[in-house]
């Protein structure tokens, strides 16, 4: 058994010193289906630094999960086709990297956890085996060492009785425990970056709070970059440093968390906040965003939000709004972003 395989996990050569941890740059993805070409991502850009939490917020079909899948290199191709852009990890363009190199980055560079832990875990292997598998294959650990490490990882994610749990199968775990086990698995190769795709959506609210606390603790402890993909404006407000709001395959607003909630810089963000029932406010009528999100097979001309926008003008129907820089670290893709921020 080779013991030096962990050494080759990172060929430092491709890294650019001083480059951001992860940078998505003008990414375009299409799904070529029988019904036509669905433009799923239309120029998505964001970056994440170590220790930072970026929340990617959006409704179903906005492209938030497809972006994550493209970063991880697990996008189904076909039907998916990457038609433009770069994904740089420490400055290295992953889209140009060999499949061997991508495998190296997956797990030890960037790891991912999913919404539905039961279908993400293999039902016929023990939880311990699934954690140990990566340690043995990628780090060349012996069975015994890997088992020891797996137990440590289960302890880290606060699974009680880890020595017994490591021998159990996923169905013997409760929903919250499964999500913890998946987090343990994602941490096995000490990633620098974690992508959490709706990690608490399937969980009850008291368990959701436990898991979010755990994720936050682990991130701080390891100084990891975290991309939190979610549709829940409440969860975002509690954990995010920065927020990117997606609509129809574009980022419509990017901002620090506080600024976004205090004064949204895009009518879509405004609409989302207005349509949220609040625990701390008893409202009468919720303000809603009229209409439906567009079909990605047929995205409206100009601003994709224009058919639903309360502030729509003629220019919105013809010209795609560029990203307006409203403040340092604050972008909005609305023709009237400045007015929105300064006005009323």
């Amino acid at each position: 058994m080779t013991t030096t395989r962990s050494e080759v996990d990172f060929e430092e050569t491709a890294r650019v010193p001083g480059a951001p941890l992860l940078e998505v740059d003008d990414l375009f993805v299409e799904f070529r289906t029988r019904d036509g070409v669905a433009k799923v991502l239309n120029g998505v850009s964001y970056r994440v630094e170590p220790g930072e939490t970026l929340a990617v917020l959006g409704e179903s079909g906005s492209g938030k999960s497809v972006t994550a899948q493209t970063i991880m290199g697990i996008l189904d191709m076909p039907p998916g086709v990457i038609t433009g852009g770069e994904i740089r990890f420490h400055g290295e363009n992953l889209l140009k990297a060999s499949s061997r190199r991508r495998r190296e980055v997956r797990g030890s560079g960037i790891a991912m956890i999913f919404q539905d832990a039961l279908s993400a875990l293999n039902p016929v292997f023990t939880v311990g085996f699934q954690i140990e598998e990566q340690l043995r294959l990628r780090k060349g650990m012996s069975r015994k060492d890997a088992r020891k490490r797996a137990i440590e990882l289960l302890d880290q994610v606060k699974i009680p009785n880890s020595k017994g749990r490591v021998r159990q199968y996923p169905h013997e775990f409760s929903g919250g425990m499964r999500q913890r086990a998946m987090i343990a698995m994602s941490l096995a190769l000490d990633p620098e970056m974690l992508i959490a795709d709706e990690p608490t959506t399937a969980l009850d609210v008291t368990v959701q709070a436990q898991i979010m606390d755990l994720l936050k603790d682990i991130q701080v402890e390891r100084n990891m970059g975290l991309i939190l993909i979610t549709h829940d404006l409440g969860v975002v407000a509690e954990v995010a440093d920065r927020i990117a709001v997606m609509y129809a395959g574009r980022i419509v607003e990017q901002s620090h968390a506080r600024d976004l909630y205090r004064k949204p810089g895009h009518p879509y963000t405004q609409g989302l906040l207005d349509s949220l029932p609040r625990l701390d406010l008893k409202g009468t009528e919720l303000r809603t965003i009229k209409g439906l999100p567009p079909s990605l097979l047929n995205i409206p001309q100009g601003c994709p939000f224009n058919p639903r926008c309360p502030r729509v003008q003629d220019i919105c129907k013809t010209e795609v709004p560029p990203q307006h820089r409203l403040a340092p670290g604050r972008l909005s893709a609305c023709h009237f972003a400045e007015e929105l921020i300064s006005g009323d």
Partner: protein
Amino acid sequence: MTDNIIEVRDLVKHFPVRVGVLFKRTVGYVRAVDGVSFDLKRGETLGVVGESGCGKSTLAQVLMRLEPATSGTATFEGRDILKMKGGELRKLRRDIQIVLQDPYTSLNPRMTVGDIIGEPFEIHPEVAPKGSRAKKVRELLDVVGLNPEHINRYPHQFSGGQRQRIGIARALALRPKVIVCDEPVSALDVSIQAQVMNLLGDLQTEFGLSYVFIAHDLSVVRHLSDRVAVMYLGKMVEVGTEEEIYEHPTHPYTQALLSAVPVPDPELRNQRQVIRLEGDVPSPVDPPSGCRFRTRCWKAQDICATAEPELVTRVANHPSACHFAEEKSIVP
């Protein structure tokens, strides 16, 4: 007659747990609903909140007579729902309707929207004579905010929110008095969720409906409910008006539940008092003795393991099933 349209007393629903292939033996019971009492007043919305497995959906099914109850009583306008048969039961089905959570599986993909919404009239022809059905269905589509022209489309041609509107139109077809909404907006995106919630509110005013509104999202429940019941492991632990539950909760579980809901305001981060519950909900097959919440409760004393707390008013003018009920402000 009282103003209560539905009265439920000590309702119990146990599901047997059977093992064995040929000779099934009952080895225990899932105590899904275990002694629940409440009233639904005419024209009000009663919110029922709780986490998965607390029995809130089973409660809905028993009220709809989709599942027989194990014991207890439930009356609709003074008549016992659980003992109804034949014509009387058919009449009940006109008066109580249900809207289900998943708009993808609760509509038959092979039927047109017109057939789905019109089907109740086949079973209850007295409501709409044959000739007037198409007109009625178009009216219903209009009422729930769909285009009446789309009467011949199939469910897959609609989005999730539109399908939920179809489910609501079907529930409205027989002009019921009560609609049981079982997680009606949980599967929808935020912007669509708000549209459907507003629709439910408008329909209540327009048709004088009473709702039993079941959901796990406490913000959604607060928005629509007049009164709220909190369930835990088959029991109701606290019942009160919307304001009593959200502003003056007295049961530790209600307090923990409220404290766990993320508030969409980053300014309040780290400023709120947070109660974190340890562990998971115990199995309803073998619930803890005494108070069912005691295994996760930070206030638990010896008495909690031996004596089951009654759902009675101890403090704050509304009933709470805790020996040590105490008012605490949680929501900022």
